């Protein structure tokens, strides 16, 4: 029977176009919604925990041909002299009381480098209490070793920070030692830039902005007088003692961006070759993966990486390079109480080897992974393996949305009244729109007010600026809980049964899209937020016990997630803190988050304030729906 292209169904078709099967599938999904959600959540968590289990991970391997098969010899001999230079640098630093610019310029010039300086100044939005700075002025000094073998279109960077106190003098010494040694070699095909940056990341930011002619954060800096080619890779060195026991590799950059995995592979390969102990997240790798302690060690290492990445902060001076498509990592020398010590010559040889291999690169590092987690330095989990863990959590939201949709489309058919439908839809839209608008306005307040109102707060309350900013943020955050619930009643009178379902559908889809986008940019942040927000989004209705659920919701809110993460992080770092210290840390982390946003453009604070927190408020609104 065929009329107008429609036939009465006689045989089966695909899943989407066969109405009977669709109905069966949908009714199964709605009937078993809760159990499926629970199973998905547990499967997601189990999958994530399984990522650290060694048989499920891949061994790292060098993907880049140019760095793999080529042989290089490391001959750097002058470790002792480098340390002496470092001591000289320390003396000059002490004498000047800051960065010994003239001495550095003279020293680099005497080695035959092209030396330039860059001045920069920046007033922080509020004083940074961790590093005790407010108005920052400084100078970067950098010397360029021009490539003798190639047309100078590409460059590599080795940087060492000039830190206050007695830190990192050896790093600068070794940098100068290496520059002298590199100057005498003829095989360089890329310019090598030796950079000593003051005021750690602020200096680095100024230099990178100057190098690339951009100004994204409104900092004052003098333009660079000399440039190399486009920077292919950068290493940042931190070294505070003459001998070290191990080298730690830091990868996490701004907004959780990671360098290409080949850079980590390169570091690991050279540590193996030269025989230096190497760690990631300060943890050595162990080969007893089949024991419980070995597994928990791997989990701890991975969790540290996840937490650091989720914070969105640059965890070393390399962190800002990543934004400019430059693969970069920090190498930190660690001196602990181990017997086996490594001297400066060996570290120099390691760096020389790494630079020679980077020098052989024919194109940017792109062969290996950009999205990965590392349970140890020789093992990694790629995006294909860790995304399902997030996917399983996100599926819960979609299932709940489907359930709500089915409920919503079932409701009007019961009334069988077309007129009532239309009149309901008017306030229906408003009752969704009002909470949406109000919670986002609260979000905007949380984003803008803390910095804007610090002067007023300092005038009226006995607090410092930093405290004022942090406490204002917390106050707005808490006030948001009291303010917006039941706002829909202002406009539409009584909230309807259908009203909260519509609002919840919107909120669940909003959260799903938000978490999905976050997880793509910064998997760790997306996963941690999903871990706490998804159960809450799945079960909240106006009909659950109010008080208990409210407590539960507050405990799972983004702010409390941060609070727990701090304790967890400290626990993993083996420096546990008590509640008091934890609170102080919590405050300082918030202020650092706001500072990171205004200084380097980190996105975590605006993301939480403008999107995640309002989304959470929507669920809060549903809980108190009347």
């Amino acid at each position, binding site marked *: 029977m065929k009329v107008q292209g*429609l036939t*009465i169904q006689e045989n089966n078709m695909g899943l989407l176009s066969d*109405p009977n099967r669709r109905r069966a599938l949908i009714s199964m999904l709605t009937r078993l919604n809760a159990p499926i959600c629970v199973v998905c959540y547990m499967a997601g968590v189990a999958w994530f925990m399984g990522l650290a289990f060694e048989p499920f991970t891949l061994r790292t391997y060098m993907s880049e041909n140019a760095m793999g098969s080529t042989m290089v010899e490391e001959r750097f001999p002058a470790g002792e002299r480098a340390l002496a230079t470092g001591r000289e640098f320390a003396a000059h630093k002490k004498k000047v009381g800051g960065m010994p610019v003239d001495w550095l310029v003279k020293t680099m010039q005497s080695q035959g480098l092209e030396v330039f300086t860059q001045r920069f100044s920046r007033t922080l939005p509020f004083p940074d209490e961790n590093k005790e700075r407010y108005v920052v002025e400084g100078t970067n000094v950098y010397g360029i070793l021009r490539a003798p073998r190639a047309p100078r279109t590409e460059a590599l960077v080795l940087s060492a920070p000039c830190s206050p106190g007695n830190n990192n003098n050896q790093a600068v010494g070794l940098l100068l030692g290496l520059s002298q040694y590199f100057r005498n070699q003829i095989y360089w095909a890329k310019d090598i830039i030796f950079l000593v940056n003051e005021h750690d990341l602020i200096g680095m930011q100024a230099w990178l902005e100057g190098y690339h002619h951009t100004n994204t954060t409104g900092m004052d800096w003098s333009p660079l007088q000399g440039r190399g080619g486009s920077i292919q890779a950068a290493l940042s060195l931190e070294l505070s003692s003459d001998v070290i026991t191990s080298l730690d590799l830091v990868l996490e950059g701004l907004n959780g961006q990671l360098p290409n995995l080949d850079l980590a592979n390169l570091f690991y390969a050279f540590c193996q070759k030269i025989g230096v102990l190497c760690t990631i997240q300060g943890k050595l790798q162990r080969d007893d993966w089949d024991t419980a302690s070995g597994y928990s060690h791997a989990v701890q290492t991975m969790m540290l990486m996840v937490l650091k990445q989720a914070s969105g902060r640059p965890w070393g001076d390399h962190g800002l390079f990543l934004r400019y498509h430059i693969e970069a990592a920090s190498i930190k020398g660690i001196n602990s109480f181990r017997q086996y010590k490594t001297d400066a010559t060996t570290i120099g040889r390691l760096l020389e080897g790494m630079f020679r291999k980077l020098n052989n690169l024919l194109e940017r590092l792109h062969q290996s992974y950009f999205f990965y987690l590392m349970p140890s330095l020789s093992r990694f989990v790629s995006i294909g393996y860790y995304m399902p863990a997030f996917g399983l959590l996100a599926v819960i939201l979609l299932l709940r949305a489907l359930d709500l949709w089915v409920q919503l489309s079932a409701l009007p058919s019961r009334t069988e009244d077309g007129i009532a439908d239309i009149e309901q839809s008017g306030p229906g839209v408003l009752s969704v729109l009002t909470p949406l608008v109000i919670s986002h306005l609260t979000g905007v307040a949380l984003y803008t007010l803390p910095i804007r109102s610090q002067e007023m707060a300092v005038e009226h309350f006995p607090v410092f600026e930093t405290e004022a900013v942090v406490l204002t943020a917390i106050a707005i955050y808490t006030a948001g809980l009291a303010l917006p619930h039941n706002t829909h009643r202002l406009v539409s009178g009584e909230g309807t049964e259908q009203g909260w379902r519509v609002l919840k559908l919107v909120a669940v889809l909003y959260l799903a*899209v*938000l978490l*999905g986008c976050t997880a*793509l940019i910064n998997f760790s942040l997306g996963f941690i937020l999903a871990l706490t927000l998804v159960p809450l989004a799945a079960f909240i209705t106006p009909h659950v016990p109010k008080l208990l659920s409210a407590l539960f919701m507050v405990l799972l809110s983004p702010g409390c997630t941060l609070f727990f993460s701090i304790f967890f992080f400290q626990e993993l770092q083996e420096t546990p803190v008590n509640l008091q210290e934890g609170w102080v840390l919590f405050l300082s982390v918030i202020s650092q988050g706001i500072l990171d946003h205004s200084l380097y453009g980190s996105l975590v604070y605006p993301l939480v304030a403008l999107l995640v927190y309002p989304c959470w408020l929507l669920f809060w609104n549903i809980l108190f729906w009347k």
Partner: protein
Amino acid sequence: MAAPLTLLLVVAVTIRAALFRSSLADLIAERVEVVSPLNAWKRVVEGLALLDLGISPYSGDVFHETPLIIYLFHFLVDYAEITFMIADGITAVALYIAVKEYNKQVFRKQKYALEADRYPLDCLELIRSPKEMYYIPLKVAMFYLLNPFTILSCVAKSTCGLNNAVIALFILCTIKGSALLSAIFLALATYQSVYPLTLFAPALLYLLQRLYIPVNIRRPSFWWYTLQYAFMYLGSLFVIICLSFFLLGTWDFLPSVYGFILSVPDLTPNIGLFWYFFAEMFEHFRLFFLCVFQINVFFYTIPLSIKLKEHPVFLIFMQLAVISIFKSYPTVGDIALYLAFLPVWSHLYRFLRNVFLVSCVLLACSALFPVLWHLWIYAGSANSNFYYAITLLFNVAQILLVSDYFYAYLRREYHLTHGLYLKRKDGSEATLVLK
């Protein structure tokens, strides 16, 4: 009904004016989803600068607007923002009036059918009431003006807004039954971007229907009217193109505008299907696949016109959707135009099957476009495959949406002739499947 429409216009203009003044405007104007090489404002400015210098604006490989647009902005360049806001307003008002007129006709037709007892008895719940139809024109205007896609497109000053206005005026004139104006606006729309050519069929069908001329190839009256309309259309197209020639004094614009649209030399990523495919292809297959891709846009006209010859306005909607999915440089502004028609088909809601899935996918894709673009272009950690995957998904969702509406429309018509509760031959309840 004028008051709500005015209010809507005021709200829409306020949002646009606020966005024009904010720092977001520059950001939006750079987005590849919002502007294409064909309609970017930056390129219009470039063309104007060349024109002022006395050089042909098409001499560089940047400017691809039609001569009329450049002369329009030659006078209006200082009032560009207002022009684009007015264009959006015109589109909304034209659609509003057109839909109002169309609903009147639908209702009249339904009344006659009811009086003639042509509907089966169990179909009464499918009959549309004037009350539910009352707000539809306003909803159409709202769907167009407050659609984020339209707002983005307007704030980016994409000339897509002007094309939409022309098409909306064409729809208005057609529905009002003015053949000459309809042909002129259709010619203008074709002149602007070639693809509206396929709207010739629905317009003709509509005008024929209006004059009660049956669509029958053996009837001379059908051919006579078709010739008349085609003559008006081709005549005005000819006049417009000649006018462009006299304005500029060269034929440069033909290869630069239509050649550019048809041969797709610019493979800047966008939300369409062309760029990735042609970037990956071996050069000697290029011509063949170009033909396949371009014929794709035009080909659907024939089966759809045959199938929907009784329902030309729905055919216009289908054609607009097909154009905006398969055209060579689509932007979100094109999508906004056919999305504005969705309220007109709100009575099909009960027959839609995938609307939840499709709207979720469209929503997610719209959010993922900028994220994956960021990962590809700025962070460098993703690549073009990620972005294209989303493009593909976005277009699949659009196709699902359109075919879902198509199915729902046909199904409703089927029920209107055969009754709502179908029985199989053996008496059990039957279900309908599109084949």
